[in-house]
């Protein structure tokens, strides 16, 4: 049983990591906790639903469009709820992202209804694999592969490319970065786009695996946030490690303690870190 629990934990953790990276990058560059991040995840899933199920496109183009929409949604979010308020107190953009989150959820409910929807075409469930007594679905396997792949690519972009260096410079010190000629507004926009892109991918993968609903982003967003704080907010490898830690902790905890506490476990972890090590595992003081 433990092998299956660890597998489930890793699979859930992969999705949390993707969400956590967005949180952590946006925090790094904009010094903002984006409370609408869970809705980018939900938006990606619903966009995929719109093209794949409602309009009947094929799976690859639907995926591409949904991922693109996720990035676009990130940019719009930055333009509407972050940029106009970046000079005001830090509390203001925090509140506006909460407003955006409520708005996006309400929109999804209005257009798609409150009921849970399945992203499967034809079949009502996926054929799963069994390896060494561990059962998992193809999408779950894909989630882990995609998650690790994207992290590698993202790492390379941040280390090697000009834009990556500019993002890191802006995160380090916004004012100095603008002195050396970096367009920090554009960089912030790009960061939001990357965050939205990753969240949309997570939303599509998890939505395909577990059905979608307008409120799916709430819990996923909180867990991604917890993962980012656990790893040390602003730190990308930290977000990845944090995501897998949360996934494993809640699955193994639910397996051996009680599944009624499954969601509480990640919040207990969040409380514990905030008290004991507020800067997170990899965070600097």
């Amino acid at each position: 049983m433990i092998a299956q629990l660890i597998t489930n934990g890793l699979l859930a953790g992969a999705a949390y990591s993707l969400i956590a990276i967005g949180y952590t990058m946006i925090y790094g560059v904009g010094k903002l906790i984006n409370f609408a991040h869970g809705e980018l995840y939900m938006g990606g899933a619903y966009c995929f639903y719109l093209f794949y199920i409602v309009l009947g496109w094929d799976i690859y183009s639907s995926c591409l469009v949904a991922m693109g929409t996720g990035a676009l949604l990130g940019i719009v979010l930055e333009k509407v709820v972050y940029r106009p308020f970046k000079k005001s107190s830090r509390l203001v953009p925090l509140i506006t992202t909460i407003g955006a989150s409520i708005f996006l959820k309400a929109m999804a409910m209005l257009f798609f209804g409150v009921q849970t929807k399945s992203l499967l075409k034809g079949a009502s469930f996926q054929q799963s694999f069994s390896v060494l007594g561990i059962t998992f679905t193809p999408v779950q396997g894909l989630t882990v592969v995609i998650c690790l792949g994207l992290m590698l690519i993202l790492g390379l972009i941040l280390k090697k490319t000009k834009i990556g260096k500019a993002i890191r410079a802006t995160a380090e010190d916004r004012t100095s970065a603008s002195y050396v000629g970096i367009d920090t507004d554009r960089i912030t926009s790009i960061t939001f786009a990357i965050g939205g892109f990753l969240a949309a991918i997570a939303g599509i993968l998890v939505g395909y695996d577990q059905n979608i609903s307008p409120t799916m982003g709430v819990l996923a967003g909180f867990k991604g946030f917890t993962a980012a704080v656990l790893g040390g907010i602003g730190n990308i490898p930290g977000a990845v490690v944090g995501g897998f830690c949360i996934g494993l902790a809640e699955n193994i905890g639910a397996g051996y303690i009680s599944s009624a506490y499954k969601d509480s476990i990640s919040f207990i972890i969040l409380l514990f870190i905030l008290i004991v090590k507020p800067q997170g595992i990899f965070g600097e003081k």
Partner: protein
Amino acid sequence: MKRVSWNKWILSAIIVLIACTILIGYGCSESNDKLVNLGFIGPLTGPAASYGVSQMRGVELAVEEINDAGGIEGGKIKVTFEDSQMDPNKAISALKKLIDINKVLAVIGETTTTGTLAIANIANRGKTVLLSPLASGAKITDAGDYVFRVSPSDAFQAIVAAKFIFQRDFRNGAIVYTNDDWGAGLQKAFEKNFVGFGGRILAMEGCTPGTQDFRTQLVKIKNLNPDFIYIPLHPDESATFLRQVKELKVPGQILGADNFSEKAILRTARSAADGVIFTMPTKPTGEEFRNFSKKFKVRFNEDGSYNSAAAYDCVYILAEAIKSSGLSGENIKNTLYNIRDYKGASGVIGFDKNGDVTTKKFTVIKIKNGEYVPIKKQ
């Protein structure tokens, strides 16, 4: 100048109008001492508005019928409708208003289990009967002397499910439930009865409302290999649960509750819902229901539902009780406890010592190719 004088005219006209309304209002209430005041609390707006509005219509129809026939011993019934918006806090202020300002004798409501539990104590303290048309949570049984309902408690539903599955020679079960008033109530009642019959419950796994990942629960259950899994889960959770049962290849019969009466589960889960067995209150089919449905159609141009029939019955039951016991909350309560077999539109209604209806039945249904097939009627 001309304009101003017009405004003055309109203003004074409005004042006169308001004064008249107040005077007429007072005049009426003073001239008719025998007005029978009742209240209604339900969600008339918000996410559960469809429940509340069809109940309100059931109440309106019953009140019109009774008043047209001369009212209760010459006094007309007047119902004050309050909107709870499915918010327990709003229900509380609504009931306080009904008791303190409208001086009602009895209240029809609340629609939901949580709402009814929230206002039960106020009703008990105010010695005002609370009669819910739809609330089914097991906890309401112990909510106090003044709380009644005309829909059967989930506890009875759990007994029917436990008995059925035990008689089919299933002995080892597991339960996955939503951790709220409704789900935990069914879980406790089912466990108690199934174990009472001689069965074993190997695992009881709760989840927060809205959960969409049941893999951990299912891994634990698959390890224990039970014959069946009882799932008092909300419709959205049920649909995902059924899918993950298939994906993790968990064997065993799935046994559900009245959550499956919501057909949205079938639209999402599709073939994964095939073979599920569940319990649901038996649909009223008697002559009383057909009569009610006809009158409802004429009045509102819409088919009468179980829900509106239950609210319609509430008014008639209260009218009966007031007729025989007069205008006192305490007497109405005592009379209600003596009702044993009132033949209502929503079925036969009789109360036990807890104010629960014991005379309504459940049907066991199996899902076959997306259709409901009744396999056992009580």
